[in-house]
């Protein structure tokens, strides 16, 4: 029973097909996966093995073709598009390889986005955005536009945006893939402290074995199936 409560992500025979013309691609094939609450998981695997696909399903921005998928106690296949969107705002933060900040919005405004449709006052929103930006060490860059920030700073703004809705789960798709060594280390350090100090559950896709070493567990995906390997 306790064991049941400690599971944040539950995939059972999870399958995803994409139709491309008259060909069907199956990036995920009957995948079983359990991720505990507070766990820091690294996903590795060759290009095209379905890592991003799995992340997208877990983050609720894509829907499985077959199988069961439960995240934060919610069966995602049961939610309508609109409710799924609101679920995402509070249960999962997505960190992209290319940051994907909105270029015409400042760091502050980018981080504020997930809160925009909540019933929070302007002041409550401001406090949360400011404290989240302080958490990623960017309280002095609040009113800068993305073009005025370095790649590493942009990625930290993106992490703040993922965090601001206080989700239990963070998913990151090659978050250091576009950064130099130093900036990558800063981002990895931040993710590690989010896991250790704030108890966030993290699923991170990476090609970098060094980055994966930070995780509690490393999983290898190969042609849509998992090969497990214990982490450091």
């Amino acid at each position: 029973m306790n064991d049941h409560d400690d599971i944040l992500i539950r995939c059972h025979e999870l399958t995803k097909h994409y139709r491309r013309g008259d060909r069907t691609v199956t990036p995920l094939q009957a995948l079983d996966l359990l991720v505990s609450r507070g766990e820091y998981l690294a996903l590795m695997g060759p290009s095209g093995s379905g890592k991003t696909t799995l992340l997208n399903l877990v983050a609720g921005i894509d829907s499985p073709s077959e199988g069961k998928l439960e995240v934060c106690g919610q069966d995602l296949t049961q939610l309508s598009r609109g409710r799924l969107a609101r679920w995402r705002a509070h249960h999962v933060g997505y960190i992209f390889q290319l940051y994907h900040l909105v270029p015409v919005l400042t760091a502050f405004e980018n981080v504020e986005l997930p809160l925009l449709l909540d019933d929070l006052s302007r002041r409550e929103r401001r406090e949360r955005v400011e404290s989240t930006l302080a958490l990623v060490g960017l309280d002095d860059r609040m009113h800068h536009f993305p073009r005025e920030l370095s790649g590493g700073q942009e990625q930290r703004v993106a992490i703040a945006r993922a965090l601001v809705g206080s989700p239990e789960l963070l998913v990151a798709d090659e978050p250091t893939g576009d950064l130099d060594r130093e900036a990558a280390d800063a981002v990895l350090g931040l993710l590690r402290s989010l896991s250790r100090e704030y108890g966030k559950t993290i699923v991170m896709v990476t090609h970098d074995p060094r980055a994966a070493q930070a995780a509690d567990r490393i999983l290898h995906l190969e042609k849509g199936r998992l090969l497990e390997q214990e982490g450091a």
Partner: protein
Amino acid sequence: MFAKGLRLMLLAAKQLVRHKVRTVLTLCGVASGMFLYTAVQTMQHSLDKATRMRAADTTLVVYRENRFCPETSRLPEFYEEEIRRIPGVREVIPIKVTVNNCGASLDVITFRGVPQNRLARYAPEIKIVDGAYEKWLTRDDGALVGKQLATRRGLQPGDAFEAAGVRVVVCGIIDSPLPQDNSVAYVHLAFLQQASRHGLGVVTQFNVRVNASEDLNPVAAAIDARFRSETDPTITQPEKAFLAQTAGELIDLIGFTRWIGLGAVLAVLGLIGNAVLLVVRGRVCENAVLQTVGFPGTAVGFVVLCEGVLLGLFGSGIGAGLATAFLVWRPFTFGNEGQTIALVPDASLFVNGVGLALLLGMLASLWPAWVAMRKPIVESLRT
């Protein structure tokens, strides 16, 4: 709900304001279209006001039969007393009309010579906004100038001006609810008769006020019957029908501008639609990110819709505002055969223009908004 909508609208506004060049170009286009549209609407509206009969109309115009120009319509002044005796007639005034240009023109100056001591009784609705009525009464070459004509020519009390060989001195500026009065100059009848080669005793037309609008047709018929066998038979019509008839070519011309207005509307629709569609095309990934962080598709669509609406709103505000300001600053008067139709801008036209553009903006961005909200997130993120 309302607060959230407002926040999304603010987001749309930021998108517009922070893509300055693109937004300014689109606004210029929308403003040009709406400038044209408002100008055309003002023409249509002014024409309609001048020629369409209303229930409260009580004015008849008595003209020489088969004549259409003030130069050729000549009636004996003594008809006045005959007309006054016809039952249903409340008031009658003989008018001598002299114009500087009998053909179709944009700058017509019309003098109306009337018995000076009777103008106030015949047209109590005329108000003096500047100068003095008494001065006009006593000054032979005095003129009461309609406010539109005064603005157009830059006239003030005390100024002298000359047109159509008639030189007058402005004694007062008048304002009347009847647009016709605002674009003419009232002078003494005898003065105008002497200035023209027809001489005393000859007038161009009689304006007749009847007791009630039901009396218009019977009184008109009675007047024409009375003079049928005279050397100068008459044709009597309600003032607006008279205008519609004598200014027929002008009306056709202005009627045609309706299509220009429609063209302007379609251009604005296309322009906003194109601008918003390009915006959406360029923001595929950005919109997918908004959805990833918790925006429902409807919220993303709403932001796009707001951008179209804001473009329409501000573009038309600028365009319609400039058109209205321009027509106030530079009033135009269309004239043909001595009849004038003043282009009078109207606050309701401005409001209608802005309202229409708001609707156009919404209409034009419906499809782009739909595109933005329906595209699957993962597909958009891969672009």
